């Protein structure tokens, strides 16, 4: 392989690993705050793949950069909504875990 390890490529690969870590955390951890943390790790990973891969030729690319700016705002919006619901659940049940079986189901 004649591939050179540019900084962009290094961070794209790191992003891929962060995404996998985030997904595992999102599924495995049961506390809602952990899930929200893991979701943010997952998102950052995807953003790093987007910019890192886009720039792997070594040229700065404004298109994925603008996409990631959009993505960061979407991520904080989703985080706030998830926190609002988690806090509501906390008030109703006294903890921040999703029950294994739904109370109504």
């Amino acid at each position, binding site marked *: 392989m004649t591939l050179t390890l540019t900084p962009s490529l290094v961070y794209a690969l790191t992003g891929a690993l962060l995404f996998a870590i985030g997904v595992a955390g999102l599924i495995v951890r049961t506390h809602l705050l952990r899930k929200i943390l893991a*979701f943010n790790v997952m998102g950052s990973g995807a953003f790093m793949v987007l910019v890192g*891969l886009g720039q792997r030729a070594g040229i700065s690319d404004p298109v994925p950069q603008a996409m990631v700016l959009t993505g960061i705002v979407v991520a904080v919006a*989703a985080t706030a909504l998830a926190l609002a619901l988690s806090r509501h659940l906390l008030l109703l049940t006294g903890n921040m875990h999703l029950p294994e079986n739904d109370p109504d189901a």
Partner: protein
Amino acid sequence: MHDLSLHAIAWLILLPLAWASAAFLLGPGRGAGLAVIGLALQLLLAISLAVGVVDQGPLAYQVGGWGAPLGIDLLADGLSSVMLLLTQVVALPLALYAHAYFSQNPKGVTWFWPLVGYLVAAMNALFLSADAFNIYVTLELVGLAAVGLVAVAGGVGPVTAALRYLLTTLLGSGAYLLGVALLYGTYGTVSLEVLGPLIAEQAPLAVAMAGALMLFGMLLKTALFPFHFWLPPAHGGAPAPVSAILSALVIKASFYLVVRFWLSIFEPLTDYAVAQLLGLFGAGAVLWGSLQALQQTRLKMLVAYSTVAQVGYLFLLFPLVTGTPEAAANSAVQGVIMQALAHGLAKAAMFTAAGAMVLSMERDDISRLGGLSSHMPQSLFAFGLAGVTLMGLPPSAGFLAKWLLIDAAIHSGQWGWIVMLIAGGLLTAAYVFKVLRQAFLQVEQDAHYRPLPRMLEWVPLVLALASLALGVRASEIILLTGVR
């Protein structure tokens, strides 16, 4: 004519954004009138767009005038026009229903109208987008709006359901986003139009992974068995108008994307084994969803599990179009679109009818339905008619859908799926009759019913009749879906 159709593309997105924002400015609980006027105009726009697409073929629209790949392109073809029609046709009566529903049961109306407006705008934008990253943004809009609507009811059940839904939908759009990142990384563009030929020419492993990630994300959001766990509590626990929108329309948005991607840019990568697996998941959905529906004690949960089952039929598309003769593939696409439309109308009818019954009985319990046949015959009739469509009996659109799917299965020599289609119809009949039988039992002595506005009984009936009428006047729809 040409210009009118192009304008329709822009205004199908701008108009709902405008009335949703206006409803937000008006304040909590306001905006029903705006929504009805806006949705009526959108219906006209969707019709004019469909006419334009039939006359002139697919229409492209360059947002900002730049053109892909620098800018974002929108595209209206047969498939997107049909989905747009379904969305406006279902959303308009649901808005009337919701207005009446919340007048009886104001809990949850606070920000309902702006949420619904943004949801409809997002779905219209999704159906029209021809840009993979733009689709990601619309997906997030759809997801957050839908979760917000589930949460409006409050209480442990709905909040838990909303959270589960939110986390699932975020995982789904995260997977989709990584797919987009890999596509951009490989080719340097996210325009579907530009990507198509590039993928056909050369597709490294990363692109196959992108396809798998996007497919996985959309399966989660469509709640295909075995990824359906989040759907029943979310759809069953929300206020009835919300349940109807979610079941009839929202899950179709992510399904539409599966179809869109599978039939266009990822077509060169489609795989026989994956297609068969998707078909098997579909069969599992029909079986599991129907059996669960039969076991439910609450009416709205029964209807929600019915959605899990009905989603299964949609995924027969994949084994029926992958590596099959063209005639079979065409029938399969038509059949699946017809099933999506039939289910959209019938499920909206069923949820609204169920909602009216539950509101009138003031509890959600199938075993207490006795006597409803004499008290709410119209709602019950609507429920039964919707059941006819879901079972796939003639002359409904559901019948036509199954007929087309069976035709596709015969022409591709895949007999197993026919067994599944027929078994699914019988199972559907079982859970529909479970409800109807209870409703025709003797009146209970202590039963008392709350009088309801007529609108709550008319809307389900109109929707159910539409699901039948669609079967009679299907040739136009089939003509439209053929435009690619």
